[in-house]
Structure formats: structure tokens, C-alpha cells
């Protein structure tokens, strides 16, 4: 069971209290790759120095990771200085008051499910849970559930895995439950197709939420 949130967690949260800084964070988090100060400044219509200030403050708080690269693609003398680039940190920040430890319990449940071999019951429960979350167009539903969808040809790919921690320790059961949950929420058109990062599920872009009714599940 976690103790009170430590200073680092509080600091991460506090860094987002400023609305403009929060907009900077959201813009970087939604980007496919790392962004430079100029790119962020331009996209948000703010000055370069202000963008740099917010980006560095977010990096300091552990919310963004920093790297350096030459954007021009040139190398060697005359290629210019490398740009400072920012992308969302993979580190998780959770602040819960009073302290709650659902992650630990999720791992215990997943252990028990895998040992007992009751994945089919887990998937059925996840599908029912998904059905309760259904409503609206697929993209909106995915966004609301934290998957961060982006279009890739005929499918939505999902930049974020909302169950990342426990999905790493119990991928079979958790990715299966995740797929079933999305099946329930979107009424179908989903399959497992993992890439190097993000969620393992892809969603057909033709998917429209079907009317969920009692006898569907």
C-alpha cells in the first residue's frame, strides 16, 4: 500500500496547475514524436522563450523527457547546434488522497486469474464493463477512455495503454481483458496487433458504436 504521495508526485501535479503550461504539456503528449521549442511555440502561438520556460519546467517535474538532435538532418560542421527536443515521459504519476493502491490489487487479481486459468471469465467481465462505457463515435469513446487514438490508414492506433503497468507483468490476461473491454465499448471492429509502443489493440475506423442492449452480451 503506498504511503502519502511523495514530493516528486506533488511537484509533477503542481507543474500542471498553470493553464498555459498544461496546454504545452497536452500538446507535447499528443504529438507522435519529440518536439522542439520552436514547434511548440508556433503551434500554441506563444513566444519561444515562454515555450522554453514551460517545457523546461515540465521536464524538471519529470513529466517530459529531453533529448538532443539536429532537426535539419545535416551532420558535421555547419549543421548547426542540435535542438533540444521534448516528449512525454513514460514515468507514471499517480496522486491519490487518501492513499489508494489499486495497481497492487490489480496485479494480485491478474496472478490469480492466470493461475486459475479463468481468463474467459475475465474477458466476459471486461466486455460487460466496456458495454457500460459505450456511447458516441469510436474516436470520442477511445479518447474519453484515455487511449489517445490516431488515424493510421483504415484503423485507429492507440498511443496510450491505460493499463500499461499491469499489462507488462501480465500481458496475456490484461491485453485480453483490454481487447474485450474495447469490444464491449465499441461493439466490435477491434483486434490485437501490437507495435513497438502504445496499446496492443487496433480499431477499424469504420466502427460505429452499435446500440448496446441487454441481449447483446
Amino acid at each position: 500500500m503506498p504511503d502519502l504521495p511523495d514530493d516528486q508526485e506533488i511537484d509533477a501535479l503542481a507543474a500542471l496547475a498553470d493553464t498555459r503550461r498544461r496546454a504545452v504539456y497536452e500538446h507535447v503528449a499528443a504529438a507522435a514524436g519529440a518536439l522542439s521549442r520552436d514547434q511548440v511555440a508556433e503551434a500554441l502561438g506563444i513566444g519561444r522563450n515562454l515555450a522554453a520556460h514551460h517545457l523546461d519546467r515540465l521536464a524538471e517535474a519529470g513529466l517530459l523527457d529531453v533529448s538532443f538532435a539536429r532537426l535539419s538532418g545535416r551532420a558535421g560542421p555547419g549543421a548547426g547546434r542540435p535542438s533540444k527536443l521534448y516528449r512525454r515521459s513514460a514515468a507514471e504519476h499517480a496522486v491519490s488522497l487518501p492513499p489508494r493502491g489499486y495497481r497492487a490489487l490489480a496485479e494480485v487479481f491478474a496472478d490469480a486469474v492466470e493461475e486459475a486459468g479463468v481468463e474467459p471469465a475475465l474477458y466476459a467481465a471486461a466486455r460487460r464493463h466496456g458495454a457500460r462505457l459505450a456511447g458516441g463515435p469510436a474516436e470520442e469513446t477511445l479518447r474519453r477512455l484515455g487511449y489517445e487514438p490516431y488515424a493510421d490508414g483504415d484503423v485507429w492506433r492507440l498511443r496510450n495503454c491505460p493499463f500499461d503497468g499491469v499489462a507488462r507483468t501480465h500481458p496475456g490476461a490484461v491485453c485480453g481483458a483490454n481487447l474485450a473491454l474495447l469490444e464491449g465499448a465499441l461493439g466490435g471492429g477491434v483486434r490485437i496487433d501490437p507495435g513497438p509502443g502504445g496499446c496492443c489493440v487496433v480499431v477499424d475506423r469504420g466502427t460505429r458504436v452499435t446500440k448496446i442492449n441487454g441481449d447483446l452480451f
Partner: protein
Amino acid sequence: MTAHLAQLNIAAPVGPREDPRMAGFYAELDRINAIADGWPGFVWRLVDDDGADATSLQPFGGDIMVNMSVWQSLEALREFTFRSGHLDILRRRREWFRPFGDASMVVWWVPEGHVPTLVEAEERLDLLRREGPTPRAFTFRDPFPAS
């Protein structure tokens, strides 16, 4: 000396190869093995006399199937297991395999070039079951670095 990672998995199928309930598994087997063979960091996997897979070997008696392989790193095996087409097989495993109620997968470090034997693999699985994860026999959940 470079260390490689050996892996053993055992599984109790719900029926023999010709059982219709196993059709979905055998339909995917060649495709998944081909993904493994081409995956970055793959070194070796156990095959029977047919040379395609190890499904006809049942060295631990009964109907227990085995799967044994060697990888350049734990990360390589982890990526294949969870970030390839293999993940969907893992998700569906209860359609084809009964739960053991005990460890059914073990990994351990071997010297580069070493081809693990089934005797060695069984010892490692027994060790994991007796003592829990140790540097000599462990799991993805509780990994140990190569010494």
C-alpha cells in the same frame, strides 16, 4: 563471455493434435514460429525430427507439450512474447491449454553457443517451482541480470 537467455514453456493441451478444439492453435503455429525465427535477438529453438516445431516431443510424459528456445537477451524474448503476433496466442491460450496451477515457464542464462537440453530445462523448472525465482531459474516477473 556473452550470456544468452534460454526459455522453457510447458503446456497441457485440451486435446490431441487432431482434436477440433486444437485446430485454432495448429492453424497459427507455423506463422508464429516464423515470426520468432525472424525476430531480432532470436538464436535457436527446439524442433523435433520433422524440423518444423517441437509439438511431437512430449518428454515430460502424458500429453505435456514443450517449447524451448534461446535468445540474445531477456528484452528480445520479452519483445517477441508481448510485442509481436505471439501476444494474441498468449491471450487465447485458455482456448487450447489447461492451467497448471504451478509455474509452466522458466528462463535462465546460458553461455553463448550453448544449446540447452530438456534435462537441463526440466531441472530449471523444478528449481523455480521449489525455490521461487533465483538467478538460476526465473521469470519475466522477477528477472535477474546475467552474471
